[in-house]
Structure formats: C-alpha cells, structure tokens
C-alpha cells in the first residue's frame, strides 16, 4: 500500500537516511525502531511530506507522491501524529480535533467516534489545548489525525515523556484503529511496546535498515545487534 524505495534524506550537508526501503501492506502494522538519531522521525516526516528526500521514491497505492507537498498528501490519506504532539495552543480541544477533518477524507472516523475511543476528552472539549497534560494532548493529536480518515497513520514517539500507565491507555486504542482498516506505521523507542503492537518490525541503524522481521519471530539478540550495531 505504501512503498518507499532507496530513500536518501539530508539536512544540508548531513545525510540522515541512506537508501532506506520500506513497505507496508494494507491493514498491516509496522514498527520502526532504533536508537536516538537513527533517522526514524526523519523517515516519517519524509513519508508525510514535511521533508523532501534527496533521492528515492514514495508510492502510495500505486501513485508516486514523492513530489507532493505535505498539504496535498493529507487528503490522499497520509496523516502524521508528530513528535511532541504539536497541538494548536490557541484552539480548544474540539477545535483541534475538527481541524483534522477539515481537509480529510470521508470515512468512519467522526467526532463522536473519537470521543468514544478517548472518553476522557469529552469533559475537556472546551478546554484550551495549551492546558492539557501530556497524555491528554497525545490523545487529541491521535484523534485529530484519525478525523482525517487516513489510509496510513504515522505515529511518531507516542510514548515520549509519558507515564507507563498513560502509554498503556493510548496503545490500548490501537487495535480499534487497526480494526477500522487503517494501516499503521509506528516509530517507537520502547522496543517492547513496538514488538507487542506491530505485525512486523524494522530497525534503523545510523540511517540504514539493519533488521527486518515479523514481530513474532524476532529474537532479543537480533534486536540488540541491529539496535546498537554490535
């Protein structure tokens, strides 16, 4: 459904990704793991269109989207939940959510279904997004992306800076999202979480793919080797 071929991304002189290949099938969940600075977030940003690759192709449903800017990829069904949530602080929770459907696709995700998925947001709907806890903000950011009814949902470091219990609550919502037919690509530092949530795992090491395997078959040793490059 999405395929990335020999992707190079640079920031000025510094090259971050070197010929990365990745593909996710319809309805599948892939986790990309790796150490800090391995290029995981960069990979997601390139797929979402926030960064232009220096080389390589990104194809969504047979359509080459490499040259499209981010704002034209969203209506095609690529939604990124960015690292650090990036909510709009001068808007309320509900206004943030509504913005997700503004340029989105039609589909099963509507405001009431997002509130069903994250019931604790109902009481906060009129609160300024600047006044939320990290977990609440992350739920709004995920809900906002879901309201665009994406075909491919990109989740960047959902667990970052959150208490384990909050992370478990957020990950508990994932099966519902996948059940609605959404293909999910997760970037996660917590390897245990990533392996539990995904069908397949891919490990990046210094901008290159170091390991790719189904989650069920991967061994702890293999992950350690790919993660640290030893």
């Amino acid at each position, binding site marked *: 459904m999405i395929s990335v071929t020999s992707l190079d991304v640079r920031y000025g002189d510094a090259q971050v990704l070197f010929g990365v290949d990745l593909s996710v099938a319809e309805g599948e969940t892939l986790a990309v793991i790796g150490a800090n600075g391995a290029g995981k977030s960069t990979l997601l940003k390139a797929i979402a269109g*926030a960064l232009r690759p220096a080389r390589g192709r990104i194809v969504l449903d047979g359509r080459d989207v490499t040259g499209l800017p981010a*704002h034209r990829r969203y209506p095609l069904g690529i939604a990124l939940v960015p690292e650090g949530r*990036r909510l*709009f602080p001068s808007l309320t929770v509900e206004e943030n959510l*509504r913005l997700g459907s*503004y*340029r989105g696709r039609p589909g099963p995700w509507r405001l009431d279904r997002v509130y069903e998925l994250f019931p604790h947001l109902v009481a906060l709907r009129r609160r300024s997004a600047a006044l939320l806890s990290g977990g609440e903000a992350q739920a709004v950011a995920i809900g906002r992306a879901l309201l665009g009814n994406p075909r491919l949902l990109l989740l960047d470091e959902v667990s970052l800076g959150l208490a384990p219990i909050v992370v478990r609550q957020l990950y508990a919502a994932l099966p519902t999202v996948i059940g609605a037919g959404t293909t999910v690509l997760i970037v996660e530092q917590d390897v245990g979480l990533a392996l539990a949530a995904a069908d397949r795992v891919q490990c990046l090491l210094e901008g290159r793919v170091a390991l790719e395997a189904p989650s069920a078959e991967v061994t702890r040793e293999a992950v350690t080797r790919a993660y640290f490059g030893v």
Partner: protein
Amino acid sequence: MTWVNAVLQGILLGGLYALFATGLSLMFGVMRIVNLAHGDLSVLAAFLAFALIDAFALSSFVTLIVVVPAMAVLGYLVQRLLLERGLRAGPLAPLVVTFGLSVVLQNALLEAFSPDSRALPAGALGTASLQLTESLSVGWFAVLCLGLAVAVLAGLQLFLARTAFGRAMRATSDDRETVQLLGIDQRQVYAVATAIAFATLALAGVLFGMRTTFDPSIGPARLIFAFEAVIIGGLGSLWGTLAGGVVLGVAQTVGAQISPAYAVLAGHLVFLAVLVLRPQGILAPAGSRP
C-alpha cells in the same frame, strides 16, 4: 457639556481608527508581518474611489462596491507574489518589502494624481446630524463609521471562531508547519488573511476620504494612528483594536478641546503612557506578554 461632546466625538472617531487598524492587526496576528504600506494602501483605495467618481459621477458609497473587492484581490496577489517570497527569506524581509511598497505607492500616486489635496463627496450624510440634547449632537456619518467598525470586527470575530477556514487561520497563526500536515496550504491561508486585511483598509480609506482631505503623501501619518490603536488595544486582539481606536480617538478630541494643536500630540502621549504602564495593551488577557 463641551467635554462630554469631545468624548462623544472621540468615541465616534475611534470607530474609524479601529476599522482602519483591523487589517494591520490581522496581518500581524496571522503572519507576523508588519505592513508598513498599510497607510499608503488606504490612500490608494481613496484615490481609486476618487477616480471612479471622477469618471462615472458615482456616490462615494457606491464606489465601495468596486474598491473593496478590487483591494481584496490586490491583497491576495501581494501576499502570493511578493510577501510569500519575502517570508522565505526570514522575518525581516517582508518588512522591507512593505516599506518598498509604501515608497512605490506614494510615488505612483503622486505621478498619477498630482500632490493636490482631495476629498470624497459625502453628500447629505456628511453634514446631517442627530440632536441628542440641546447642546449635544452627533454626525450621522460618524455614527455610521462606528457602526461599520463594530459590524466588521464582530463579523471577523465570528468568522475566526465559527468557520472551518477561520479555525484554520488561527491554527496557521499558531504553527504554520503543523497545519500543512493536516492538509492546509498555509500560503492560501495567508493570502486570504491579506485579502481580508486589504478589504477592511479599503473601506476605512474611503471613509477617511469622505471625512477629511487626503493626498499621496499622507499614508505614513495614517499608519501611525493604526499602529497606536493596535498597540493601545493589545496585539492580536480584535476587540482590543476597537478599544484602542476609541481610546486614541477620545485622546485626540479631548486634546483638541484643550487646544486644537494638541489633538495629535495627546494621542501620541496616551500611546506612550500605555506602552510604559501596560505594554501588553489595555484589553490583552492577564499574564500575556507584548
């Protein structure tokens, strides 16, 4: 009674200042662009109305039907073709671009219309007044200006709060990178914001022209009033802009009551006092910074 009258006239004058300052406030609020050509653009709008009246013998109000949309289109194009390029070069570049636009406009208007002072006919409305008490009366035209200012500001506030595009505009003001990840083309949002700003300054420019005379070089002097209204009211707050315009208007008419020479000076002094005592503006939310 003369003092009450001065305050009353000041409030009405403030409506026009607020209407004029709305566009400056909006462009700064959404794009962080300080439009130094704001005053000259309002003079351009007045000269457009003047040319239309000259050619077709229209009423000043009828010219608004042409001038306001024409200026909105100009705003859209100026943002897409000039300021957008400037924004890519850093925050200072758009300031320089608008300064250049100001110089170009002043010289082009001078070339086209000569340095003579002009005025737009206000018709019977210009002199009609409403007798409130024996010694107190207000001009219908000034009342109309204040009414239009309140209507425009309320309309804009509703647009920003209730419509999907309005929400997108506020979100773009918060974080122009993230809106693109939600399918919003920030260049389009910026261009529409500029179009709205130009439409409101065109309306104010024509009304200014009906109230007092104008010439090609008066733009920068007008710009100061818009600045003062925005800063007194508080940056980024539309109702603050109305309050700022009214405070400025009252300061000027009360100053003029003391001595006609003090009108503009009194406005500047109140502006400086606000900058020293309450730099976030009189209507800015508590705790916010300028």
